[in-house]
């Protein structure tokens, strides 16, 4: 177990380094630099000063070393479009994305597991086939489109939910704690559900086949022979085994969730990482973009690590390794 953990940690570290390296080179290699913007006039002398100040006049390898050092110390740079440290901006944005993603993951897996399990138990019935068809349909929907439609449908045409943002722009600060929580939750529903629905389709399919693999196994028959009710047999004995591969799915679905969150955040104006990245890109705020990509990569790496840990805990066969 310990060896497994150590190996996984090392792997995560490599991922982070790789992400950092890639984002650095990509962004530095892009045409222009942060100080070549022409949106508003700036004295060229000042430009050069800023360039020197931020080290953009150094040769690339030197910049890279300096960059690595900075990242290792958590100094991700300065965002000129937000007039604040990148670290500060992200420190605000990341928890919001985490909130959205956690809600989405929770909903996606709850839905996906339930649907997949139901399908497996009713294997071959019309319900099974119809559900597969519907899931396939959802799987084919672009996330930003679903987000737009959801927004249109449930925020404009039928004003059930707020139309964007994370909090009520006007009243939030005046609410009680309970009110504020409810406010955020109300804003959370649509974007989280949108994200969740799309992942749930894939998860359901996975869960269905995982459970179908487990159900014919001998220990399931043993459970029935012991006199357990069918529901207990499925939910306690079979599902517990079928859930194991799903846990690996958590780790695997993280990169796509982060990506999906990006679009969904934009449509719903949820002020998380995706939203920040979008405006950073428009403003050619290199450091902020770099920081976002790096932090995104770290989040994914950590999330996978957690998922693997969870798997090791859940499967007793791994624990004694």
């Amino acid at each position: 177990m310990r060896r497994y953990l150590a190996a996984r940690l090392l792997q995560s570290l490599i991922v982070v380094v790789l992400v950092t390296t890639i984002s650095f080179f990509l962004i530095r290699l892009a045409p222009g630099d942060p100080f070549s913007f022409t949106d508003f006039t700036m004295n060229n002398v000042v430009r050069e000063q800023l360039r020197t100040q931020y080290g953009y006049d150094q040769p690339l390898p030197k910049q890279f070393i300096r960059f690595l050092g900075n990242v290792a110390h958590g100094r991700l740079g300065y965002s000129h479009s937000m007039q604040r440290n990148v670290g500060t901006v992200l420190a605000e944005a990341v928890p919001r994305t985490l909130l959205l993603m956690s809600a989405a993951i929770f909903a996606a897996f709850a839905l996906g597991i339930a649907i997949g399990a139901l399908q497996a138990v009713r294997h071959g019935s019309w319900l099974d086939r119809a559900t597969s068809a519907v899931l396939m349909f959802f799987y084919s929907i672009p996330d930003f489109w679903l987000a737009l439609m959801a927004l249109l449908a449930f925020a404009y045409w039928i004003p059930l939910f707020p139309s964007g943002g994370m909090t009520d722009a006007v009243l939030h600060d005046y609410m009680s704690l309970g009110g504020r929580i409810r406010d955020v939750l109300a804003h959370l529903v649509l974007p989280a559900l949108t994200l969740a629905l799309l992942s749930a389709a894939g998860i359901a399919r996975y869960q269905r086949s995982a459970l179908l693999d487990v159900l014919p196994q001998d220990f399931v028959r043993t459970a029935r022979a012991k006199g357990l009710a069918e529901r207990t047999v499925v939910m306690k004995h079979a599902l517990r085994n079928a859930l194991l591969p799903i846990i690996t799915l958590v780790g695997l679905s993280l990169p796509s969730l982060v990506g999906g969150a990006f679009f969904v955040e934009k449509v719903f104006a949820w002020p998380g990482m995706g939203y920040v990245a979008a405006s950073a890109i428009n403003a050619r705020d290199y450091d902020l973009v770099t920081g976002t990509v790096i932090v995104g990569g770290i989040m994914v790496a950590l999330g996978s690590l957690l998922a693997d840990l969870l798997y090791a805990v859940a499967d007793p066969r791994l624990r004694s390794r």
Partner: protein
Amino acid sequence: MPSPTRVSAPADRLAASLVAPAMAADAPSLVTRRRLTGTMWWSLALIFLLCIIAIFAQQLAPYPPNAQLDIIGLKSRPPSGAHPLGTDQYSRDLLSRMLFGARISLSVAMLAVLLSATVGTAYGLISGYRGGRVDAVMMRLLDAFLAIPRVLLLVAVLALWSPVPLSALILVIGLTGWFEVSRLVRAEVLSVMQREYVVAARGLGASGPRIVWRHILPNVLNPVIVSATLGVGNVIILEAGLSYLGIGARAPTASWGSIFFDGSDAFQTTWWIALFPGLAIILTVLAFNVFGTALRDTLDPHQLAGDRAR
């Protein structure tokens, strides 16, 4: 029973004939056997239809896609007889734009996936065949690559280099989508290498590249084909999303995503600009997904191919 390889050289032929009877029920190789089910037929037909539409967009479209027909009279008109899908705020006929959009979206997706499939297969082949430390290192690297959120990276790259020509778009999307394929290929390579005909070929002195090309490659293509089919759907969605953000296909090029982008300001009133590209995407992606999953179920029901990765 699948035939083991496309053999011609004497050594290969001998190897194959010696061990062919020993081969038990392998998963049917797409290269040698096809068993199309009903679902596969209609989804394949749909894909074919869409390709035809894309190719003949010129002939089918009533108007040129970028023609601003009547900036005053036909601005943002809802669907009507003359314009079955309505017009956008530049008075361009949506139907025509959509038809040409099919061309862009489909070709970008297919070319990008082709690139991904090629790179991924090569990587998987090398990694699987070499084995040992080379394999271990390559796989670690791959795991790292897989952890990078594709969308984030693409957005960063495209935004910073924009405007980006379509070819660059294809290149970038293709180069970020090969990771899962290579993992699948490697797994398949490892399994194929265990099979008798490869061992026999090696025993008979066939060289490395020859073995890979003749014996291994044709038999590992199954997951690649499945992955590619499903990948086309993903890329269509991805490209649409990127265009919607303004960093994919650029105006005035009409891709289904950029049609969105053009109309994104006033969705509440011009619902048709949002609805139709979305439906087109759904339909197309659905066709590819259905075909791809049916293919996967036919070829190997136990294959846990990668989930929707963007």
